């Protein structure tokens, strides 16, 4: 089930993120993830940043720990083991979508928004990062989105502040049929509150510790769900019912800790 692939392209996106492109045949829908094995190092879950309709699939890796640091040092021609795709995907049917991307959350949202655009949806993007150089896929979004609004924590580009600060005015004038989000979970919680108060259906992509990724080990248990198979994309109606959302995560041991 694991395919060994050769990395064909390495694209430095921001100082802390890099995109690895590789040939991988299995059909993947936007929002799904793969398990990426860097032999001798680790195997980690990565949402596909190039998925639907692409022969050269891709993952965009942000340096977080040892595994992602080593993935950031991968060169063209290096070998990766890929299994998947796993999990569910974004429903592409809404006609007017507000995409709220925080930091590396843009990795999964960009291909989903592109796919929705191909189906004729109107796409607004609220893109946030800590600082201007860390804005992920800014140019990619600008190529297809109907509008792209930027925020940075330090004010080096766009509005100064968090990306969620942009939401009240966007939601007030937008008449959106969906809000899609991915990023730090505290940000996703704020976005859910904003979407709910404007009656906009919300879908967020979650991140949890993954081990088996095939519904057995329980490492990704999130309330009564397994993120690997019943996620990673959850509707706000579900997230608002799960106590863990924005509050608890499980460590590799399974111990529940405050997020």
């Amino acid at each position: 089930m694991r395919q060994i692939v050769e990395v064909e392209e390495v694209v430095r996106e921001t100082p802390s993120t890099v995109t690895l492109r590789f040939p991988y045949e299995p059909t993947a829908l936007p929002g799904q993830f793969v398990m990426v094995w860097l032999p001798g190092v680790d195997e980690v879950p990565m949402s596909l940043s190039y998925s639907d309709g692409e022969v050269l699939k891709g993952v965009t890796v942000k340096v977080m720990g040892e595994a992602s640091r080593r993935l950031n040092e991968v060169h063209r021609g290096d070998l990766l083991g890929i299994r998947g795709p796993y999990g569910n995907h974004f429903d592409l049917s809404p006609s007017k979508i507000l995409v709220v991307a925080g930091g590396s959350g843009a990795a999964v949202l960009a291909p989903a928004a592109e796919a929705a655009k191909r189906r004729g949806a109107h796409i607004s993007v609220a893109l946030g990062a800590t600082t201007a150089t860390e804005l992920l896929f800014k140019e990619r979004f600008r190529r297809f989105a109907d509008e792209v609004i930027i925020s940075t924590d330090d004010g080096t580009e766009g509005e100064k502040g968090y990306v969620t600060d942009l939401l009240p005015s966007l939601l007030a004038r937008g008449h959106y049929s969906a809000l899609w989000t991915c990023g730090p979970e505290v940000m996703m919680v704020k976005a859910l509150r904003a979407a709910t108060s404007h009656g906009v259906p919300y879908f967020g992509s979650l991140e949890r510790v993954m081990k088996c990724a095939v519904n057995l080990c329980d490492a990704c248990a999130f309330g009564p769900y397994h993120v690997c198979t019943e996620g990673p994309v959850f509707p706000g109606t579900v997230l608002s019912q799960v106590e863990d959302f924005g509050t608890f995560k499980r460590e590799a041991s399974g111990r529940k800790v405050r997020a």
Partner: protein
Amino acid sequence: MDLLQTRVTGVDFRNPILLASGIWGESGISLTRAYEGGAGGVVTKSIGSEPRSGYPNPTIEKNGTWGLLNAMGLPNPGIESYGEEVRYALSRGVRVVGSVFGGTAEEFARLSQAMEALGVAAIELNLSCPHAKGYGSEIGSDPEALAEVVRAVKSAVRLPVWAKLTPNTADPASLGRAAERAGADAISAINTLRGMAIDPVTMRPILSHVSGGLSGPAIKPIGLAFVWQVFEAVHIPIIGIGGISRPEDVFEYLLAGASLVEVGTAVMEGGGPLFGQLARGVSDILVTHGLKSVSESVGAAHRR
């Protein structure tokens, strides 16, 4: 489904099909989902004294031809943190069996006492994990070491004690007899078989731990033969485990001598509802054979 109700080691189960240890066992909600899906009971993940992260990934290798290999490395939050998960499941009426692993007989005994205090119905001793240094089958493949653990736990708790045996042995009967003589109330068998996978392109082992445990349909014949042999060697009940995914598999284990079964790998595809499907299927099979209870079928294939 009264036909399926059964009592084993003094514990009542609404049906003989339990969730196996290590599957869905990190969270109390997941245990509850398996029970609500129709399981007769659930066995917790194997719990130790301290939080343990387990091995780095890759921890599994799945293969359409032979099944699933895993070397999770006994990840668990430690008995103290795990209490809330057990209490959650118990508060929802779930029949919970607590699985524990230790490096010494005393550690097994302490953990079993802690499980007993949480209110579980029985203790299952993990004497058989094939991929954790100093634990599991490293203790459980030596009849004397296994007996020492069972004796220590039996003198520490009042609950029924199930000894989960390793198939990585040349002599299942003597392991079974050692457990029985030491006072075990039941034998669970089998755990996974040691195996490994090598990637031919990168020319290295796939699992970070190199070797792991094989599970899934490939090991059913091995589990059946193990249960068969142990059934002829001991008088205590047996919990049959290994490669069960269909009602017929459950029935075959009962015929070989199992009083209960546990299901693990098949949950990957079937989820919680698998348990209800298996229970209904087994009920139908019993009716077809004119059997009035699960216990009438236990060991029936030995009456040749």
